[in-house]
Structure formats: C-alpha cells, structure tokens
C-alpha cells in the first residue's frame, strides 16, 4: 500500500495501462504537457508523444476521433478538461460512441474511456462547475463510474480502460489532492459493484463522489445522537448495484440519497424510482433526496458554498427520515 493523491492514483493507472497494452492512447488538450491538473504528468516523456497525444481545442472532433479509433481496435483514453466542455462533444458521444456497437449489430466495438472532472469547487461559475452524470446514465450504451477516493480512482479507471464498452469516468476536481491508501501494482475494481463505507442499522445513506466524504462526516455526527447510519457508495452508476442498496434497505427501512448534481431527472430520481418499486413494502418512511438547488452554479465563494449540499443539510435530511418531520 502506498499513500497517493487521487490525481497520482489516476496517473498511475494511466501509466500502467499504457505500459501493459500497446493499444492504449491518451488523447486530449495539453495531455502531453501533463494536463492542467497533472493527471498525465510524465506520460509523454515515458511513452512518447505518439501515444500521449496533444490535440487542438476541438472537443467534438476529438470525441469523434477517439470513437473512430476505438472502432478500429485502439483503446483510447481521452481527457475532457471540464464536464461542461462535453457539451461540445455531445453529438459524437451520444450519436456515435454510445451507439455504434448496437447500431452495427455488434460488429464494431468501442473500447473508449472518457476521463472528465466535474463539480462545484474553486469558483469557476456555471460553465466550469456542473455535475452532469445523469446525462450519461440517460444515454443507453455508456457506462458511468464515479470514484470517491484514490484507490477507487485507480481501480475504476483501470477497469474502464480494459472494458470493451465506452465508459465515462467522472472524477471530482475537489478530490484531486486528497490522499489515501492505494494498493501497489495492478488494481482493478469491477464496474457495477457498490462499496459499503460504514455499517449501520437505522438508515441507509447512498452518496456519490465527493458526497461520500460528507456522508461519512454526517454518519459520525449522528452516531453521537444515537442514529446509526449505513453509508453506501455505488461507485458505478451504470450498471448500478441495486442489490446491495436494497439489501441494506431491508435492514434499515429508510433511505437517503445524496449527490452534488441538481435533482431534476438526476441519478437520485432514478435510484429512488427503482428502490420504491423494488422494495416498497420495506420502506418505513419516504425516501429523501439531497441534491444541489435548481440553479446554475454561482461563482461567488459564499454562493458556491451555499449551493453545494453540505453536512448540515444532509444531517437534517437524515434526521427527518429517521425521526419524522
């Protein structure tokens, strides 16, 4: 075990996969220079600029390029600098990457990994802070993973690169410099398996990405009040490990879902809709969602802080579900 930052863990996954498989390419804006956050640091020096490829600022063409290359059997890993910029590549992502396999009747494979970071941190404002995972869950043909710590960042990215379908790996910018233990050497986490982060018997709290940290903090606080919170991190939003979540719910009878994105047609809505159908009779209270307010992300530090769902809001929601209104 080594202690690495989240961004170092990503770097290590990329390095190992570049070394392991000649078909892996890292493509994106400024990636040969290390990328704006250092995820690709040192890779061009080690593997050459032929496999760690700098591109012009043409997100649409890059997504199309990577999709076309994947259809030819390469295993490209592209970096989209901010999830907000994926709007420029949506056509290629939705209309090509996600569908070519299906539309071609299985003739074409698209072993593509899209690395992208998101979240409200650093006062970037509405065009650099969105959380858009629901879009990708909504597009059949894409898999969606969201690592919440350095070990998962490495394990899920490695699994994504080796997967034969297009996988979107959504990182959180605010987690980049957090540290954690990461297994040495090859480390993969199967896509589609949730992680139990903290056991508890009173209420199940499902949280994604950075909200896992907040959920654990809340669980600690509420333990002092006599409420035992079970925290589950789905890690992969599609495919979703519904069994782990409903098994927990059968025990606790109560569920709170937390994510940083807005609620409207988001991951929380989907999970809630699935759970109420699958485990209606086990529910002792209405399920609650905690997401960002229905607004673009503001830039001002105080507004941004007010925007991001925090421990206080989450604790309030959990108390309400456990104790009643």
């Amino acid at each position, binding site marked *: 075990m080594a202690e690495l930052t989240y961004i170092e863990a990503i770097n290590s996954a990329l390095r190992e996969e570049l070394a392991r498989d000649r078909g892996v390419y890292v493509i994106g804006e400024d990636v040969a*220079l290390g990328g704006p956050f250092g995820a690709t640091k040192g890779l061009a020096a080690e593997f050459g600029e032929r496999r760690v490829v700098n591109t*012009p*600022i043409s997100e649409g063409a890059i997504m199309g390029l990577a999709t076309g290359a994947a259809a030819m059997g390469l295993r490209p890993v592209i970096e989209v600098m901010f999830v907000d910029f994926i709007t420029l590549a949506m056509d290629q992502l939705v209309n090509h990457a996600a569908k070519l396999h299906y539309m071609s009747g299985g003739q074409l494979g698209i072993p593509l990994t899209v690395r992208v970071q998101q979240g409200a941190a650093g*006062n970037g404002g509405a*065009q650099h802070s969105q959380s858009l995972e629901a879009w990708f869950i909504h597009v059949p043909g894409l898999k969606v993973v969201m690592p919440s710590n350095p070990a998962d960042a490495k394990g899920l990215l490695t699994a994504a690169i080796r997967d034969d379908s297009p996988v979107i790996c959504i990182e959180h910018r605010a987690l980049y410099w957090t540290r954690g233990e990461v297994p040495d050497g090859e480390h993969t986490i199967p896509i589609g398996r949730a992680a139990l982060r903290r056991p508890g018997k009173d209420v199940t709290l499902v949280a994604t990405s950075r909200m896992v940290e907040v959920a654990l903090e809340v669980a600690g606080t509420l333990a002092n009040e006599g409420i035992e919170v079970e925290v589950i991190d789905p890690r992969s939003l599609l495919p979703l490990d519904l069994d782990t979540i409903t098994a927990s719910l059968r025990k606790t009878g109560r569920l709170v879902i937390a994510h940083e994105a807005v609620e409207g047609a988001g991951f929380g809505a989907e999970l809630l809709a699935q759970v109420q159908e699958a485990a209606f009779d086990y529910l002792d209270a209405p399920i609650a969602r905690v997401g960002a307010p229905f607004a673009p992300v503001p*830039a*001002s530090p*105080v*507004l941004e*802080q007010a925007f991001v769902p925090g421990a206080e809001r989450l604790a309030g929601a959990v108390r309400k579900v456990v104790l009643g209104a």
Partner: protein
Amino acid sequence: MTSELNQQEAMELLRTMLLIRRFEEGLIQTQKSGISIGHFHVYIGQECTGAAAIALLEPQDKIATTHRNHGHLLARGADPRRLYAEILGKAAGYNKGKGGTLHATVAGLGFLSTSALVGGAVPLAVGAGFAAKQLGERCVSVGFFGDGVLEEGVFFESLNMASLWKLPVVFMCENNSAGALGQSAGEYPGSTIATKQLIDVVAPFGVPASAVDGGDPRAVRDVTQQALARARNGGGPTFIEARTVRWPGSRPLWPELSTGETDVAFAWEPDRIPMAHRDWFANDGLIRYVRQLFDAKLANTKEILALDATVRADLAKAMRFAIEAPYPDPASALDDVFA
C-alpha cells in the same frame, strides 16, 4: 503615430491602457495575498488592442467577450469598483457575485455576454449582428476572442453565416501567441492550427481579413475604423487578427507578476529594464505607446507619472471597496434562475 488623435484623446487612450494594466497587476497581488478569486486570465500586454478598438465604438454597439474580459470591460467604461467586487464574488459586483471573473459582464455598456467556453462567444456576437440587421439598427457587433477559437467548429459555422448574410460583425481575434509561442513552447493554453497564418482560414469565406500589430494603437485604429465603416454600410463582416507576444506572467497556469510591476519610466529610461525582461518590454504596447507620446511631445514625464499615480490611487480605493464589500445573501443563490 497619434496624428489622428488630439492630445486629449491620446492621453485618454493612455489612461485606459494604464487602468487595465494596473487593474490586473492589482488583481494578481490581491490573489497572491490569499484572497480567493478562482482561476482568472489577464490582458496584460494586449491593452492596446482593446483600448484602441473599443474607443471607436458607438454607444449602441455590442460586444461579446471571453474569459479574458477585464480589459474590454474597463475600456468600455466599467466601474473598477464593481468589477473588482464581481471578481471577488461580492454582492456589489455587476453580476451580484454569480459570474466572477469568467463571466463578468456589464449589459448597460453593450456587453452581450462573457462566455468562458472557447468559441462560445463567437456565435453570440454573430447573433447580435443578426439582430441589429433585423431590427434595422445602425449597430455593429464586435466579438473579441483568442487564437484558440479558430480550432473550434463553431467558429467556422459562425463566420460562414456572418459572411453569407452580410452581418455587421467585427471578428476581433486577439492572437497572444504570436512569435512561436503557444503549445509548441509548452504553454497553457496552446493553439495549434495547420495554416501558415491565422487569417488564411478566413480567406475562403470571402471575409476581408487583416493582421496587425496588436501593440500598435494606430494600426488597430485603422483596421477597426475600416471594419466598423464596412459593417455600418451594409458591407458585412471583417476579421482582424491583432498579434501580441504573450506576457511571461501569463505563461504559468495562474498569472504571476514575473516581470514585476510595470514601471512607465521604462519608456524613457530603457536601461532600467531588468535584462531578463528586455525582450518583452521592447514589444510591450503600453511602454511603446508611452515612448511615442513622449517623443511626439504630447506629454512629458511628469504628466505621465501623475496620470499613472492617479490611476493607481483610484484602483487602490476600488480594491479596498471590493474587499470590504459584503458577500451576497447565500439564499440569493436561488434567485435569477428565471425571469
């Protein structure tokens, strides 16, 4: 060089350029002092372009700009206090703290929008030209953008439509990567285009295009004047590439005062410029302009220093205002989503 400007106009242009330079130097110092303002981009070294071009606009004209917007806003008359406040996320900011540096905008001064997406503002500028033509207004829309935009598909889509429909638009491309900088020199952000010069990509669209020294206010004035006249007379769009050399302080991901604060006396005492920065200051439009004013006897050193001191004092007050100004009510995060 200032033959077409009278002394008062020449000094006003200098004031604008100094205002922009000092505003951003102050911003870098404030950020280094530990006040968070998010990722920001400065216009240092490019002041001549915005100051000279925007001075020619009429009140009804529209401007669309980018993440590198401070210079354009100030040149158009934005209040430095409110602009600083916006950048610091305060309630008194033009955008009530919702926009920050990336989206700072002043609608009352004809700014349409400030898009932080590469190429995002270009179709918006074309849209404003389209609207002006439809409404029969004698208004020109000027889009400011960087050289990287020429790599975005939406630029071509927008240029094509502006040409096809002869819209009153000036495409003002501020190429701050002139002189083999940019991606090839290992900098952020890099621009990569397979043509010999940027204006080549414009030629097939039948849009008049010219490249000028962005650090030469007279050259910028000349081409902008022609472009505005063409637009107002129904002649359609023009593309201008204003070339400047990247300020070394803009090379790191976060701006740094790596050349130190600008000393206007460099203009008449070049020996005082530190050796390491001589190349850059030799090209710096601001220093070159001060020297020209001085040589043409339009201003003496005392007047120039006094103007600089006034600008700096005003900006210090503006920054203090912004720092002391209250943050917005957190609940206002929910406002302004809809009309």
